[in-house]
């Protein structure tokens, strides 16, 4: 009798165990992936990565839906699609050709800016346009058409000579301003919807020695300062400003760093060793404090300002300026995340824009930790171009919860902010979370319908998909 019960128990248990393991292994087959925004964990069918073009071609023909990924620092699911195949391009990262004389380099799209810097630094060359950090892949950066601290070379698109594109039908084509030129302005800033960027030929600049020039001022003086001391002075090559989010000086105080061509260019060699990531504990601690308290924000602002102001007169090479620290911003909290927003505002609207921004943020609850300001020149080469004018680009770092309610709360504030930005003739940047409404997208990017129409024309089977397309393009 007892034995019968034990056997029955073991039998039932075995059935249950088998079912559980079966379901578990099915679940494990899909992979949950998320991008740097951490708001869109997405189950992908499989992650594929290769350095061979035939492999990539084969997958494009076999797989139904493909999302292309580099470092996945976009935050709106631009590299994700439920049950799609994630093409991880990070291992497709060789430097194919480098011609120091012509100042050209050809790299595979998974190469990072850091890879390029290491290659070209010994030759006294430097990248023309990239983000402030060097951790990103070239392919990813092209797909969002990035800009950075440089104020003389425009957006990334202006520095691209040509690239090869693997299309939805498996064909590989050369794309430049003269060859298959129809693709050029769509693929750059195209968020991976037109094909896989294989290799890219970029123009390079000369590495130069810069001297820091720092200043702090009231926001009302910034427009004039920038016009007179920065824009007009050809010696200023790069520029970065920070706007206070500390309660004591909220959106009023600005301090700036200009990177001015140093007179002593002969000393470049002395400074040209590439710097590595510095100690992150202290800035990390301070950023941590500023997440949770007004007091922390004041301390962070004052210390940061003091630190940056003291760097006045310091020498640094262009390559090293383009290797900014990023590790201290890494944030591991299971319930909260840090998202970015970037707003473009015409240079001459700056003062009135900041006044309006202050009004919006004073009324609403949004934990803004940091605002940096960069300059980007008028450039409408890309179909989805953000620089409809000479613009200041304000990047906001926002701490928010990951729950549905938190997302809705942030969305409400951000939509208000974008409406206000659009009223000033401004625009917003697309790689971030899909907070903006469809109407806001249309207003900020008047060619968006043309963009999606072209996407469907060039990729009729919708092979390349991502959550950005899913949200706005359908």
């Amino acid at each position, binding site marked *: 009798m007892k034995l019968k019960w*034990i056997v029955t*128990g*073991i039998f039932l*248990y075995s059935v249950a*165990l088998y079912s*559980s393991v079966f379901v*578990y292994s099915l679940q*494990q087959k899909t992979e949950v992936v998320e991008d740097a925004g951490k708001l869109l964990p997405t189950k992908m069918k499989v992650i594929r990565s290769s350095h061979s073009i035939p492999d990539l071609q084969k997958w494009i023909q076999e797989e139904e839906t493909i999302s292309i990924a580099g470092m996945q620092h976009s935050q709106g699911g631009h590299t994700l699609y439920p049950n799609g195949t994630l093409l991880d391009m990070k291992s497709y990262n060789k430097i194919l050709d480098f011609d120091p004389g012509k100042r050209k380099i050809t790299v595979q799209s998974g190469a990072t800016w850091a890879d390029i810097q290491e290659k070209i630094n010994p030759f006294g060359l430097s990248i023309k346009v990239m983000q402030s950090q060097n951790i990103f892949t070239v392919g990813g950066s092209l797909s969002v058409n990035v800009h950075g601290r440089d104020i003389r070379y425009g957006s990334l698109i202006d520095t691209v000579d040509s690239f090869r594109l693997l299309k939805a039908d498996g064909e590989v084509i050369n794309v430049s301003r003269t060859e298959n030129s129809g693709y050029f302005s769509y693929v750059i800033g195209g968020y991976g919807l037109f094909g896989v960027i294989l290799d890219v030929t970029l123009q390079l600049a000369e590495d130069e020695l810069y001297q820091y020039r720092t200043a702090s001022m009231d926001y009302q003086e910034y427009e004039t300062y920038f016009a007179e001391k920065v824009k007009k002075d050809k010696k200023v090559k790069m520029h970065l400003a920070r706007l206070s989010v500390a309660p004591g000086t909220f959106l009023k105080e600005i301090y700036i760093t200009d990177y001015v061509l140093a007179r002593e260019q002969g000393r470049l060699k002395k400074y040209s060793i590439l710097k590595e990531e510095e100690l992150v504990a202290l800035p990390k601690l301070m950023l941590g404090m500023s997440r949770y308290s007004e007091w922390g924000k004041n301390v962070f602002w004052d210390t940061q300002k003091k630190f940056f102001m003291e760097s006045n007169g310091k020498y640094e090479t262009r390559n090293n300026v383009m290797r900014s620290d990023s590790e201290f911003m890494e944030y591991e909290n*299971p*319930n909260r995340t840090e998202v970015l927003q970037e707003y473009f505002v015409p240079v001459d609207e700056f003062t009135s824009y900041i006044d309006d921004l202050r009004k919006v943020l004073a009324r609403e609850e949004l934990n803004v930790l940091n605002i940096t300001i960069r300059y980007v020149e008028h450039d409408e080469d890309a179909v989805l171009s953000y620089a409809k004018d000479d613009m200041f680009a304000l990047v906001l770092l926002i701490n928010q919860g990951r729950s549905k309610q938190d997302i809705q709360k942030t969305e409400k504030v951000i939509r208000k902010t974008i409406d206000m930005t659009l009223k000033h003739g401004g625009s917003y940047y697309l790689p971030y979370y899909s907070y903006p409404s469809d109407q806001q997208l249309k207003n900020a990017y008047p060619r968006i319908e043309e963009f999606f129409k072209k996407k469907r024309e060039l990729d009729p089977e919708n092979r390349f998909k991502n959550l950005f397309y899913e949200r706005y393009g359908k």
Partner: protein
Amino acid sequence: MNNRTFITSQSLLMTASSIAFPFYLLLIRNIGDSYSQFGLAYGLFALTGALFHPVVGRLSDRIGDRPLLIVYTWGMAGMMLVVPIIETVFVLYMLQIAMGVLGAVQKTVEKTALARQYTGTQTGKKIGNYHFWTNVWGAIAVIATGYLIDFLTIGSLFYLASFLYMISAIMIMKSTSSKLTFQKEKPVQY
């Protein structure tokens, strides 16, 4: 069920729960996306536990500890099979309620069994010994799991725990039913 079986099976239980518990906590946190959901999940567990303690206590007086321990061990073996595959907060809440009931069974029955078995002299010593052995196993399991996790997936840790619960269940089923539960005091001889 004699004392030895009881201690061995309880040690096995302790080992199983020590393996699963830290990762179970992680899992609750990951499935729920806010502390309020975490709190609710835990509250449900505690509340159902509270409500079931008196019921379990009465039940153990009526049907004895052994059947309840069998229910608990099989129940937990089953639960540990569900844990690796849950995906929604709702299922997690359901699981927490079920675990609350089972937790009440284990907590109450552990004590009733101890009380019934260790009456008479040196009760303290016996209970001390009992806790010593079960806790040693728990401690070993926690430490070992810390190393194991580098080699095993979280899912397989839950399966391992489930397996241990099952062994414990069979062990209790195999034991004879009379000894522990209906242990009569020896008639006093004059």
